[in-house]
């Protein structure tokens, strides 16, 4: 009797399995991407709001392409801590790893090992060292350095009505990122906005350094106003500077327009009350979303990550540029319209 029952159960199980196989859609949900991929999304560290948003975008992409995505990673943002989780990914036979590199060197041997086991690796948000770019297929990064600078010029031009003189309130004089962005602002302003100028004549002479310190940034903001009373706008390409500028502008009820790179959660009150019309930053949600598409296409064999190749994510196409990097494009901007949503995210 029991044996018979067992047979029936076994038969039922087999039939069930067959039915399940038949029900699974044979064709992909998104053309060019295999369904049912097992994807790991690894932040520098879990429990960081920025990466929670990043993962949100990744999960959205996963849903669209019918993949199973797990958000895994260490609690401390170090390379060695990530390595343990990369090993786990290798063990658990994931198809794809999308990772924000907490250390541009230390995780490279592990990524190579993952690659050797056939795992498709894509870095997103933070890349490995340029010399190790072979350890991943492609890197999905926010925006090209030049464009981060020139986009901010566009924002301030819009705010001041495309005329008047402007200044920059930067981080430290040695900050490499900021310096690269600022260098791109100079020629762009001259070329695109002939009725605008720099308060000090050139962009270098119009740049003030707040050292990413709230007090110092506030003092430098005041210094710009007293030195150049007719300054029309100030760009602050750093989250500390732009926040200090907004606070001080409001306190002094100054007329100068302010924009720059700001965290929506910090800038929300000043955008809501009109102190600043617009600030921008890259959108981690898009970063995660695009990275999953790039990785899934690479795993499905419809994208190879070579310079000059391109891939589609959602309804946009992204091109791979020098160094195997795909840039999202313009920084994402926050205005009264969308700030309520984004201030909750990061």
């Amino acid at each position, binding site marked *: 009797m029991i044996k018979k029952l067992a047979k029936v159960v076994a038969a039922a199980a087999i039939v069930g399995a067959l039915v399940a196989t038949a029900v699974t859609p044979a064709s992909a949900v998104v053309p060019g991407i295999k369904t049912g991929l097992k994807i790991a999304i690894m932040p520098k560290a879990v429990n960081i709001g920025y990466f929670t948003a990043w993962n949100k975008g990744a999960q959205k992409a996963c849903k669209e392409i019918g993949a199973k995505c797990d958000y895994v990673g260490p*609690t401390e943002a170090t390379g060695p801590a990530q390595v343990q989780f990369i*090993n*786990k990914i*290798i*063990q658990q036979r994931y198809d794809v790893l999308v990772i924000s590199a907490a250390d541009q*060197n230390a995780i490279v*041997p*592990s990524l190579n090992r993952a690659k050797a086991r056939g795992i498709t690796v894509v870095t997103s948000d933070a890349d490995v060292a340029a010399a190790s770019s072979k350890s991943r297929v492609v890197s999905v990064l926010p925006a090209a350095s030049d464009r981060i600078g020139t986009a901010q010029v566009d924002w301030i031009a819009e705010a001041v009505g495309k005329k008047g003189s402007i200044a920059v309130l930067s981080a430290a004089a040695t900050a490499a990122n900021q310096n690269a962005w600022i260098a791109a602002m100079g020629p762009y302003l001259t070329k695109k906005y002939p009725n605008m100028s720099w308060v000090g004549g050139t962009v270098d002479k119009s740049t003030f350094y707040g050292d990413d310190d709230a007090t110092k940034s506030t003092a430098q903001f005041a210094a710009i106003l007293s030195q150049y009373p007719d300054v029309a706008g100030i760009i602050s390409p750093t989250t500390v500077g732009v926040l200090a500028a907004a606070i001080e502008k409001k306190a002094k009820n100054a007329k100068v327009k302010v924009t720059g790179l700001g965290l929506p959660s910090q800038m929300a009150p000043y955008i809501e009350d009109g102190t600043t019309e617009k600030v921008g930053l890259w959108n981690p949600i898009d970063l995660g979303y695009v990275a999953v598409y790039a990785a899934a296409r690479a795993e499905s064999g419809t994208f190879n990550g070579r310079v000059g190749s391109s891939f589609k994510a959602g309804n946009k196409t992204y091109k791979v540029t020098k160094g195997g990097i795909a840039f999202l494009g313009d920084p994402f901007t926050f205005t009264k319209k969308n700030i309520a949503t984004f201030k909750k995210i990061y």
Partner: protein
Amino acid sequence: MKKKYTFGWDQGVAIFLLMTVVIGSFVSEYFANFDNISFVIQDIAEIAIIALAMTYLIIAGEIDLSVASILCLSSATLGFLFRNGAPFEMAILGGLLVGLLCGLINGFLVTVVGLPSLAVTIGTLALFRGLCYALLGNEPVNELPEEWIVLGYENIPGTFLPWSTIPLAILAAIAWIVLHYTRIGRWTFAIGINPEAAKFSGIPVARMKLGLFAVTGLMSGVAGVVYTLRFASASPDGAVGYELSVIAAVLFGGVAIAGGVGTLWGVLAAVLSLGAIRSVLQLIDFSANALLVVSGALLLISVVVPKAIEIYQSRRNSAFVTKI
């Protein structure tokens, strides 16, 4: 307290390790395979190498909290020398020498100056770490020679064992023989049980301790080289917090924090247990936050349980005495 219960702590650890492996293979299909064994060994290699020396030090009644900083400084020295044009072999030698030197500094301050090792090595923990930053700046050294890096992450050809198994196995064998079958081993226990008595029985206590600190420094240096190869880079923030894992493993392996008691194989079983537990928890998708709790809990268990047993037994003994 001579052998009261035939069932020792170190046997308990071995059974614990076995249970972890058995349970691990049941709860995760990815646990018991050669790949994972390779990962676990890689993961614990540095901790195991340092733990070998730390076993001696704690048995002798001393401790070294600066081992992770020495590891880092040795790795930083290696990177610094290589960055400045030294051949890689020389850079490795330099890293090992710096490890030895750090151990000698600790030993000198403890044995010659006469300071407690806890205080000394808390100081050098910060000092050596600071020197890492001074040496490398905020710039990690990468682009190490490829033929060396592969030793850091590949297996010995034809086996499932990572290259780091070789130094680990050789050093463990030496440490085992010396601790349990030579005069140096007996002296180490004697010093831990009663340093005064050891001194009067003609054991060169100060020289022994200096030697143990020096060897611990050197082993941390070896671990530093292994670490550098494994992560293909030398970075000033490497191996932060490793001293805790080393000490947790040694104590969990049955070495008494007060000194005088312990076996090397107990410690090795404990290091493996630590690696196995971490692997199992990771593979069953335990959150990373919970992993921290586990090593902390193991440390506490290994200190609290023996003490509890001791108290329980002395109570029972005294009760017995009063009855008579």
